[in-house]
């Protein structure tokens, strides 16, 4: 039986952690994810869960200890944001290459500098090639739902990779919204007990982790890791189906919102998708054929699926909440356009950078963008391929 409540995104993730009662959680505070380890510590202090919490001295150590605990045979996780993720970057690579199914609750915040505590996706995007699965939430509800699906994806023998569950700093993490929660038992049954095949604390069956690997072996290890990431796509979909049976809430690699007959589509990720959907409703009421493609799973990147979903529109806006400093757009822009090219789908695209370091992104911006897409497709007006929206 679902329970209705009101929660912030951080509360929702902490509550999911409480329901899962994982074995080990090392963490170091950083705004805006600090509340997650605080809340977990309070659950532990009140005897509601018995997770081993390690108050480490840095984020590099939080991911290092998470890896150590996971290798030892314990279901492990941590939480962080921004510079914390940047500091653990080396360890993100090791979590993935050592095939550790750990989970990271990431509350997206911009990277320094200038130092700023507000939302954009530069932290997660900086870690996009570390071998982690990355799943993004639009709302507190999705952050909760995604988090509960994380371990079944990560621990699946076809995958054995770490999963990053992302939500937008402050916008999602601190804003309180209605939420539907599962019963504790439902969550426990869904996530199950962690029974690794091999682990350090297996008496009489020692295991060695983290070898030096010469060129004769290292390339195969990387390829196997990549194949596992590819295989995770099916697992993500399977887990989502099972989760729908349990919760009634369905998830795909991405959500298509009023795109069926859309001439113009905005591809966007995270909380701003909600803004885009509102604007789409407004424009639809005026007879405009517009829609939103909300990307949920960024890694593995569903390039082919996105290309096919965009093939019937006249123009698409690709929205990056980060800057790649490559001179022609953000990571979504590069990867979506590469996917379109592979499928030989030559629709017009404009790549927008928006919402950096917490800059507001409003329905007016969305109207403006759809106006530009229409002008571009209908009148042949040339727009700069890489544009900033909401810039002063």
């Amino acid at each position, binding site marked *: 039986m679902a329970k209705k409540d009101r929660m912030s995104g951080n509360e929702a993730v902490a509550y999911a952690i409480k329901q899962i009662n994982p*074995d*080990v959680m*090392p963490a170091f505070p950083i705004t805006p994810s600090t509340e997650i380890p605080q809340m977990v510590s309070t659950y532990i202090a009140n005897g509601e869960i*018995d*997770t*081993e919490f*390690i*108050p*480490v*001295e*840095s984020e*590099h*150590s*939080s991911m*290092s*200890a*998470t*890896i*150590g*605990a*996971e*290798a*030892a*045979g*314990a279901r*492990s996780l941590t939480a962080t944001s921004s510079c914390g993720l940047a500091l653990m970057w*080396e*360890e993100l690579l*090791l979590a993935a290459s*050592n095939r550790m199914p750990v989970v990271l609750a990431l509350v997206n915040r911009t990277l320094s500098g200038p130092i700023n505590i507000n939302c954009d996706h530069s932290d997660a995007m900086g870690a996009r090639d570390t071998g982690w699965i990355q799943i993004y939430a639009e709302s507190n509800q999705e952050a909760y739902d995604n988090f509960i699906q994380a371990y079944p994806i990560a621990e699946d023998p076809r995958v054995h990779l770490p999963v990053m569950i992302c939500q937008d700093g402050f916008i999602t993490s601190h804003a309180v919204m209605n939420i539907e929660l599962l019963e504790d038992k439902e969550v426990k049954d869904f996530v199950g007990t962690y029974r690794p095949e091999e682990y*350090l*604390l*297996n*008496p*009489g069956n*020692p*295991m*060695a*982790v*983290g*070898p*030096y*690997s*010469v060129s004769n*072996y290292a390339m195969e290890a990387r390829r196997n890791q990549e194949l596992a990431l590819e295989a995770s796509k099916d697992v993500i979909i399977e887990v989502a189906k099972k989760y729908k049976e349990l919760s009634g809430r369905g998830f795909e690699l991405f959500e298509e919102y009023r795109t069926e007959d859309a001439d113009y589509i905005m591809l966007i990720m995270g909380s701003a998708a909600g803004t885009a959907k509102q604007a789409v409703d407004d424009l639809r009421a005026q007879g405009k054929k517009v829609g939103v493609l909300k990307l949920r799973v960024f890694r593995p990147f569903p390039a082919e699926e996105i290309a096919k979903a965009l093939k019937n529109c006249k123009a698409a806006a690709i929205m990056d909440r980060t800057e790649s400093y490559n001179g022609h757009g953000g990571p979504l822009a590069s990867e979506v356009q590469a996917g379109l090219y592979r499928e030989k789908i030559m629709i017009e695209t404009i790549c927008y950078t928006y919402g950096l370091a917490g800059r507001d992104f409003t329905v007016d911006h969305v109207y403006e963008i759809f106006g530009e897409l229409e002008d571009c497709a209908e009148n042949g007006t040339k727009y700069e391929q890489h544009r900033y929206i909401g810039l002063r």
Partner: protein
Amino acid sequence: MSSYNLKEVMNKPERLAPGHRMCAGCGATIGVRAVLRALHEGDYAVIGNATGCLEVSSFMYPYTAWEDSYIHNAFENAGATLSGVEAAYKALKKRGRLPEDANFKFITFGGDGGTYDIGFQSLSGAMERGHDMVYVCYDNGAYMNTGIQRSSATPRFADTTTTPVGKVSVGKMQSRKDLTSIIADHDVAYVAQSTFTRDFKDIHLKSEKAIYTEGASFLNLLTPCPRGWRYEMADIMQVCQMAIDTCYWPMFEVDHGKWTLTYEPKKKLPIEEFLRLQGRFKHLFKPGNEDLIVQFQEEVDRRWEELLYKCER
């Protein structure tokens, strides 16, 4: 703690198998084997290892020299990684996911680069949190794995590849960091400094105490490196003996805050006896450099006096 019987101890099964790729005459593996001999039979261990010579030479895929479970993560995080392993042990124990009688011990090894320098924060954190583990530093006084660059454990005036002796340089200009004291000041359960003696008794007893004292323990072992120190491979025991007899590397322990000297040379030898055996100090014996040896001696004396004071001698 058991009484010490050299023959018995040396006849225990090895927990670091031969066939690894460490250099002949290397102190690190002698130190590792000495520590592992202190594990009681029937006890399991998880060994941690910072990146360094020991790691890249003992666990080269698909071979491992380690008989126990082993984890290498990265260079600067051996302390944090083993913290996680130890916390996992507590979690699995209390949740009944390990056999009741499975007794695990946690020992991590790092060189002075991974311990004094890049891994210092991670070590400090693990010690302060009081994980039930032993951190063993195999201190060979430079970054040997990358080719003998100076570390904060390198003694003053040593010739290294980043403090080369030259026309206007006499080697490293700074003194060694006293890491053993720094960790003792973390107020952890047990801290000790040791090296190899002919009977291996000191290192054995300290290892056993470190492993079987509840809480965080730290062992700092002087483990000479023939490549970096430039001594004759067969002379390693003599080098270690001179390190303790000149009081360059005093052997002591700090057991729950109590400082005890575990070896006092009958006659404290001049520092030249230690320096003379090593090519990295060759330039100190050139005419005109006498004052450098005086300075070295003064530092050794000052540190020795401080230690005697702490040990209430």
